[in-house]
């Protein structure tokens, strides 16, 4: 079996060029794969991609809609990145995002119309973070104190959160539901004072807040003592214990921070473009898309911002495809393909693959086998 097999060996530190090229190559490979699918089904790939770029970046309105879509993705991407860095497999950003939205809308409705913006807006935004952390705690506490696998619990909590939101709007006369609309149930609008002002078409300052949070998370994770300890525990919980780091508390902290970030995504979305607990605007899989954003950005908080803009552009360009008779789900397929190529690329970042030298002799053959 020796001889023809390729040799795979760990590559110490990958060069910065490689770290940038692999994600770009995965996006490119996904676009090529998508083009093949489109061509096989009788569509014109050039026309489809042209339409997508045009819808996402073609004019001011397109750009503002792209950035609106990117805002929650920055937060759910950060949520996944923070957790995954410490090997906390929180795949519940979806549910934490929805609970952030539920808490934010609830806070806004509870405060009512009389509250000044300077109080209402920060309270509503923070309420979302609390909601996200609250929902994450249902998986975080069992994980830390009982050792319950968080992959399954966070996954299940997503569906409970989704059904709970639907219950608040469609299944009950909750305060979240608009009492004035009797036909198709809708969310009750949050007061204008709690809404984040717009500055460019429909784009609100939420995108700026999200970008600042990304920088803050970068500083926290890469420059602070807390972040250093998190990275130590992420590399090896054993090392962390020997270094005197309280590992359970660290895991709990990271898990709740991750939930809070996803929840902030929900509150920025409610206080920004949506303005109510509206299931149709909130149930878009933004938590799951956040996982792609984090994986493509290789868990780097600063890289998450441009990647989220790219994913936001894709999300935003889907509906435009309908006008040329192409299914909007082309975009979901492309996102999945991008993620597949990006995770495959991880292998080539971590390892070097080379051909075995012809007829290795003596010691070098032993080295190659080791």
């Amino acid at each position: 079996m020796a001889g023809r097999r390729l040799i795979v060996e760990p590559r110490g530190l990958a060069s910065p060029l490689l770290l940038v090229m692999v994600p770009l190559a995965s996006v490119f490979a996904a676009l090529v794969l998508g083009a093949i699918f489109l061509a096989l089904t009788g569509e014109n790939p050039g026309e489809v991609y042209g339409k997508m770029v045009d819808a996402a970046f073609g004019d001011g309105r397109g750009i503002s809609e792209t950035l609106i879509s990117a805002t929650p993705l920055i937060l759910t991407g950060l949520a996944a990145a923070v957790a995954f860095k410490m090997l906390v497999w929180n795949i519940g950003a979806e549910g934490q995002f929805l609970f952030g939205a539920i808490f934010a809308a609830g806070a806004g409705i509870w405060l009512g119309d009389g509250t000044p913006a300077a109080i209402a807006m920060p309270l509503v935004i923070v309420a979302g973070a609390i909601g996200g952390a609250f929902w994450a705690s249902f998986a975080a506490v069992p994980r830390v104190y009982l050792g319950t696998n968080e992959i399954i619990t966070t996954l299940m909590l997503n569906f409970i959160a989704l059904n709970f939101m639907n219950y608040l709007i469609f299944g009950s006369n909750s305060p979240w539901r608009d009492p004035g609309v009797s036909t198709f149930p809708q969310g009750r609008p949050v007061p204008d004072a709690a809404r984040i002002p717009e500055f460019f078409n429909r784009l609100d300052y939420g995108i700026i807040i999200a970008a600042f949070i990304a920088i803050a998370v970068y500083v926290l994770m890469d420059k602070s003592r807390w972040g250093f300890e998190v990275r130590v525990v992420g590399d090896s919980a054993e090392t962390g214990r020997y270094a005197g780091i309280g590992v359970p508390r660290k895991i709990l902290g990271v898990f709740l921070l991750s939930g809070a970030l996803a929840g902030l995504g929900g509150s920025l979305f409610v206080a920004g473009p949506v303005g109510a607990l509206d299931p149709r605007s909130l149930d878009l899989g933004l938590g799951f898309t956040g996982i792609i954003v984090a994986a493509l950005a290789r868990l780097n908080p600063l890289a998450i911002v441009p990647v989220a803009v790219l994913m936001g552009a894709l999300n935003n360009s889907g509906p435009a495809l309908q006008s040329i008779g192409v299914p909007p789900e082309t975009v979901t397929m492309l996102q999945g393909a991008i993620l597949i190529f990006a995770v495959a690329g991880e292998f080539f970042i971590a390892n070097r693959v080379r051909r075995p030298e012809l007829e290795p002799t003596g010691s070098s053959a032993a080295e190659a086998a080791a």
Partner: protein
Amino acid sequence: MNDWWWVSTVAFGIGLGTPLAFATIGEIITERAGILNLGVQGTMLVGAVAGFWATFNTGSLFLGVITAIVAGAAVSIIHAVLSITLRVNQIVSGLALTLFGTGLASFLGKVGSDPLVGEPSRATFEPIIEGGIAEWPLVGPLVLGHDILVYVGVVTAAAASYYLFRSKLGLAVRAVGEDPASAESAGINVSRVRYIHVLIGGSLSGLGGAYFALALVPTWQDDPIGAAGWIAIALVILASWRPWRALFVAYAFGFAQFLELRLQTLGEPWNGIPSTLLAMIPFVLAIIAMIVFASGKRARFLGAPAALGIPYFREQR
């Protein structure tokens, strides 16, 4: 039959539970070999669209089922390559497969000048016995009145159980899931075993998806399976990684789902229970079961493979 509404509810529950059983048994087989595949939802959707498409074009249910099985195995190759050969994170890889499969299924259902969406299936699975003994009380609706795939589901559970726990090959599979390094030194090709069982799992997921499109919801729509793939992943735990138990928890969930619809037709006070709250119950139960029965070391006791989700590095022996 009206007095026996719960009998027909159980009978329908068995039908609704059958696709869940296929997917759950498939995921059990995959996980027993040590690979966690979160791509079930996407794989089921691809199986559903492939099976529907084949039956739509040929009129043959048999070809539909075969196409779904092949399509399910084909897309799960993605997860096998990523998680076994490239040893990437199995969670991200599985989610990627779900995302891609979901998009692909919708895309294939809508693309072209004559899309599948909204089209009724040209053939559907019907009960194999109509009237006669299928109308006997209790045994009729519960045991005799189903379509062929329900019985295939029972056979699948029996076969999977025998394979995993009574056969020599199954012992090798479980060894790979428990301790791949020891399995390798006993002469088992870990990568090959894992590849094969990811593909078997994928083909059963594909079959489960096709059951939705050809029996339960025989008109192509964008999302014919609901959250079945995700439910199947939870059912693996409730079934404690055992195929027979998978069959019965799947039936129980099918029953719960049908009961949810049934309650709305029963009048006061039953129809006052919001369906959104009832829809949460499976997921709440799965979480409680996870916490109570599968926390920490108890997960091992329950049957969770020790090497589940951990990439295997041959060189690191």
